[in-house]
Each structure stands twice: as C-alpha cells, then as structure tokens.
C-alpha cells in the first residue's frame, strides 16, 4: 500500500487544526466577551459548515479564494501558486470544515472560566495579556484542546470540500479519504481496506491521546 496519501492527510489535518484553533479560539473569545456586533448571526455563520453540504461549502470557498478572487490573486502574486488545486487549498478546505467544532468547544471552555478569577487577577495588577495567558488560557485549555481534537478528526476525514477546492490529487497524491474512494472505484479493494483501517487506527489513536491530555489538563486545573 502507498503511504503517501496518509502522510498527506496527516499534514493537511495538522495544519488545518492549527489554523482552525487560532481562528476558532479568537472567534470564540470575541463571541464570549461580546466584542462582536450581531454575535448570534456571526455564531450562525461560523457554524454553517456543520449544516451545509460539502459541495456548497466548496463552491463558496472557490468563490472566496479561487483564481478570480481578490484573495486568490493576492496569494498567487505573493507565492506564485494558487490556493485551489494546491496543498494550501486543501488545508483551508479542511480548516473551514473544522472551524465550527473548534469554536463551539473553545466557547464552552472559555465560558467555564469564572469571571471572578479574571477580576481577581486584574486587582492583583495583571494586564489583559497576562490575565489571558496565566488565567483564561490554562483554565479554558481542556475545552480548546477538545475542540482541536474534534477539528483534527474532522479534517483528517474530509472528502467533499477538499475534492472541490484541491481537486482529487495534490502533486499527484490524493488524500487518504480520496485514495479510498479511488481504490474502490478502481476495484482495488485490498488497498481501500488497508487505507481505511490505517486511517481509522491513526484517527482513534490521536483522539485517545488528546482525551488523555484533556483529562490531565482538567486535573491540573484543580
């Protein structure tokens, strides 16, 4: 069996998770701390990837970052590559699918931080950055990590949005989920079964490890 699709999927999923963690946590913070206008609308928009068909999401992404879009043109002039049909496009596609899961979990984590602790830290002289780094983030960490974990699982298994934005192969290599589909349609049942089993084992192992980490962090929270 060819391992390249699994390696590609892991690379895409890890980067997509990082991306969705950064943006998802930031959006969750703005929603929790009521720094955004029309927060319910923004929450609904950010959660839309949960309910929209992958093809619809893919269509929106192609419109937003395609070669004719301002973002797509800016990226191309900066890097010489397009978003679509490239690794970057696959990462963005997987990140968009993961984003609502990260936002929801991070939001729960942030909402679990007692506001009195934040007030106490301020009365003890801590500025905004120190309060965030020493109080909010450590106490919200289990929620944020749980979000990252779900986001990773979602990104690893993405098929539809990736297919729409990055195509069926990136530099000649399909992602693991596309590889399984290709193998089935080509009648290579053994390859499809092997990739399915390995992907399942890797995904479950990552979730198991993240679960343990989350439990440890819960314990460390006191």
């Amino acid at each position, binding site marked *: 069996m060819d391992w390249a699709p699994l390696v590609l999927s892991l690379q895409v999923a890890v980067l997509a998770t990082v991306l969705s963690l950064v943006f998802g946590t930031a959006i969750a913070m703005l929603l929790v701390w009521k720094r955004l206008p029309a927060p319910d609308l923004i929450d609904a928009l950010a959660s839309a990837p949960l309910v929209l068909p992958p093809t619809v999401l893919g269509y929106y992404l192609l419109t937003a970052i395609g070669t004719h879009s301002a973002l797509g043109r800016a990226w191309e002039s900066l890097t010489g590559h397009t978003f679509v049909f490239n690794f970057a496009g696959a990462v963005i596609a997987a990140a968009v699918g993961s984003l609502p899961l990260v936002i929801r979990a991070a939001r729960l984590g942030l909402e679990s931080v007692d506001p009195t*602790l934040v007030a*106490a830290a*301020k*009365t*003890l*002289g*801590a500025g905004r950055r120190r309060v965030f780094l020493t109080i909010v983030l450590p106490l919200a960490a289990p929620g944020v990590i749980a979000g990252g974990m779900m986001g990773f699982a979602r990104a690893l298994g993405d098929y539809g949005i990736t297919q729409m934005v990055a195509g069926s192969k990136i530099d000649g290599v399909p992602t693991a989920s596309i590889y399984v589909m290709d193998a089935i349609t080509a009648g290579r049942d053994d390859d499809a079964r092997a990739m399915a089993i390995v992907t399942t084992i890797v995904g479950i192992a990552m979730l198991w490890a993240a679960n343990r980490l989350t439990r440890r962090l819960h314990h460390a929270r*006191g």
Partner: protein
Amino acid sequence: MAELVAQIKLARPGFVLDVELACPPGITCIMGPSGSGKSTVLAVLAGLAVPDAGRVALGDEVWFDRGARIDIAIQQRRLAYVFQSLALFPHMSALANVGYGMARDLTREARDAAARVLLERVGVGHLADRRPRTFSGGEAQRVALARALARSPRLVLLDEPFSALDRELRAQLTALVRELAQELAVPIVHVTHSIAEAHLLADQVIRMDKGKIAERGTAAEVLARIATLDDE
C-alpha cells in the same frame, strides 16, 4: 495616612446607587440587606464597575472622576480585594497564588520567599505547595488574605469573605484581620452581614439600604440600632 473618599452614582435597571463614603485608615464595615448595593460599592472602588457619575480618591490621588474623565486602571490602584468566593486560582499552588500580585521585576526565588513569609504570617505556611482544592474553608480564607497582602495594598476591600465559615473559624479570622489592619494602617472596607463580626472589627459602620446610606457612625452607635439585620 490616606483616607478613601468616594461619591458614587450609578443607575441600573431596577437599582440606583447613590452614596458618599469617607473611610479613614482602619476598618469600615458596610452592612445592609442583600441587594442594598454593598458589593457594587466595592466593585466601583476597585475599578471593576464604572459609575455613571462621581469621584473616588485615596488621599491626594484621584482614581476616578467622571467630570474630569479620570479612570485609573484597576492594575494601577494597588488595592487588595478579597472576594466572597475568594477567587483563588485553582490551577496554581498557594505559593503561586500569593506571588501572583507581587512585583514582576522580582526573581522567582524572591517572590517565592516573600510569599512563604506571608503564608507563614497568616498561619498556613504548610500549604505553600498545595492547590486550593485541597484547602479547608479556613485555610482558603487565610491564603486569600495572604494574597491580598502581597501587593502592599493602599486599600483593602473584603467582600463577605468569612460568610461561609463556622463561628469559631470566623472568630479566628476576624482576630487576624484586626491584627493585619493595625500593621497595614490603610483603609479597609469590609462588607459583612454579621453584627458580631462588625462589633469585633469596625472602627466605623455604614448601614446601606436600597442603594443609599441609611446610617453611619462608630460600631457602638450604629450596631446598637441594627436589630433587623441577620447575624450568623
């Protein structure tokens, strides 16, 4: 020694707060029924709530003046605030909790050493490396007091910190606060429901009702007239 002087006007749906306070160094107990605005007064003094109008000054230093558009950040007021819930950081040891408010230019070793001294001072040196979830109610109060002292505060705000304790522990901690008040010689504003606690602690008692000051005076003057407030 600086006196705390405050005029506070604040209107919220269903609640209006309109008070004038003068708290000299020593202990001022604020009493009154729930919802009378006691904790809101502390929040305004700390800078955690912004009044619609008024002025808060400690000695010559103006912390808040609506008219002059002065609002000194909480972090710069150098006050100590012991919350009703104590608000000890659950993910930090007692030592780290106490050291949290100390000057950032101190080395870790110097902060830890100073925090140990404070924990010893309030009788819980043995808790230094333990987390708050392992503390008893009285131990947690003592750690919270040590943390409050760590900033060498110019004003101490105590929001019913002993309300969840039994009579014996409350008596021990009341005595400790009395000792600390003498050492610090700064205004201490202590919100309490307990007449016994106010009797033991207060140099001045302020009784609030429905967002206004109903009565003020020495403990002997005011407490004798407070028959309707719950004690214990």
